[in-house]
């Protein structure tokens, strides 16, 4: 097999049947959606120019940290791209946090059109996405990043409600929270509800009551039977097969919640992907 330097001695069409040609009207566009902090991506590769020289190209791309789309375009020169890769050169994004796509586009600014996808998938600081070599991967394929998320500590009398962020997909693995009940005599049951932002789609039920004037601890998780333990601890079963896209909510729906009842901040264990 010839290496790129040897290929430079060959006529381009014979040597580069699979190479991507970048003409004067073409450019490389990097698009990213990212949730991790402090990430900078390095895009690098080699290009065989029309005069037979093999040159390297390197440029940097800085993703946003709120999962919104960041896009930059670069002109690496005219010729055939021999290889390219993208790696996180700063920051420590995990799989599921920094999704990147490298495309060949027609035009550079203004109205551009994508004419080819070079690579697409998650990148980390420890593993690159490369062309040729890496599959073009959808953002929700494969495992996501496991995150422990601390939610909002609601005011007294309010339910817990956590919304899946825009451009994220969550799979809820577990949620834990406390409820301090007020002095009103009533039997509360903080059930767990999943909804699409408006309409409920699933509900997991607590099977024991929380009475007045005490602190109760709840843990919804997979693989447990709904039951009450000692010390006001309750377990409840959670079906973890629900994929929740952006805008879906994870919230309590409490029977007989009193105005002075006070939930603590929930702690969620979720598997997360980017989903545009």
């Amino acid at each position, binding site marked *: 097999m010839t290496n790129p330097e040897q290929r430079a001695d060959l006529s381009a069409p014979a040597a580069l049947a699979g190479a991507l040609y970048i003409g004067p009207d073409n450019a490389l566009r990097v698009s990213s959606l990212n*949730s*991790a*902090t402090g990430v900078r991506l390095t895009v690098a590769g080699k290009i065989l120019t029309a005069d037979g020289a093999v040159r390297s190209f390197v440029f940097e791309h800085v993703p946003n940290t709120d999962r*919104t789309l960041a896009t930059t375009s670069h002109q690496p020169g005219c010729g055939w791209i021999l290889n390219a890769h993208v790696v996180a050169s700063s920051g420590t994004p995990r799989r599921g946090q920094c999704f990147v796509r490298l495309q060949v586009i027609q035009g550079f600014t203004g109205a551009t059109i994508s004419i080819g996808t070079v690579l697409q998938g998650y990148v980390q600081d420890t593993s690159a996405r490369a062309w040729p070599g890496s599959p073009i991967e959808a953002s929700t394929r494969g495992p996501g990043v496991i995150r422990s998320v*601390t939610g909002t500590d609601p005011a007294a009398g309010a*339910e817990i*409600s956590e919304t899946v*962020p825009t451009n994220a997909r969550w799979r809820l693995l577990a949620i834990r929270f406390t409820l301090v009940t007020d002095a009103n005599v009533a039997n509360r049951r903080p059930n767990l509800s999943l909804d699409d932002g408006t309409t409920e789609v699933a509900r997991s039920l607590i099977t024991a009551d929380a009475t007045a004037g005490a602190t109760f601890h709840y843990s919804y998780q997979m693989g447990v039977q709904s039951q009450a333990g000692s010390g006001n601890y309750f377990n409840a079963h959670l079906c973890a097969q629900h994929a929740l896209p952006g805008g879906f909510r994870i919230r309590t729906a409490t029977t007989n919640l009193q105005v002075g009842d006070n939930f603590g*901040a929930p702690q969620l264990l979720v598997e997360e992907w980017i989903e545009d």
Partner: protein
Amino acid sequence: MKVQCRTCDGIYAPTLADGTQYFHVCPPLRRLRVRNLDGTFATVAPEDVGLRKIVGERFVDRPNRRDENVRRDPVTGASVIVAEGAGTAPVDDNLIP
């Protein structure tokens, strides 16, 4: 640093321990659908049910709710939050249990 939402009074950290951003959204309000004594139906707060029969449950958006999720401004192209609500105020960590 934590902040308190001026709409719902919920307290949260805008940046989580893993460095990622947290996007607060005010919790909905629980409302009950009841049958009035004259046979008509109404949606009321739980404390206003009285002797009426509860026939259903609804969760409705809180008035002036805050939603920190991002959307793209159609004019500027910049990322802006969905709804400001009444804003936030910083909270002294030493005053939180």
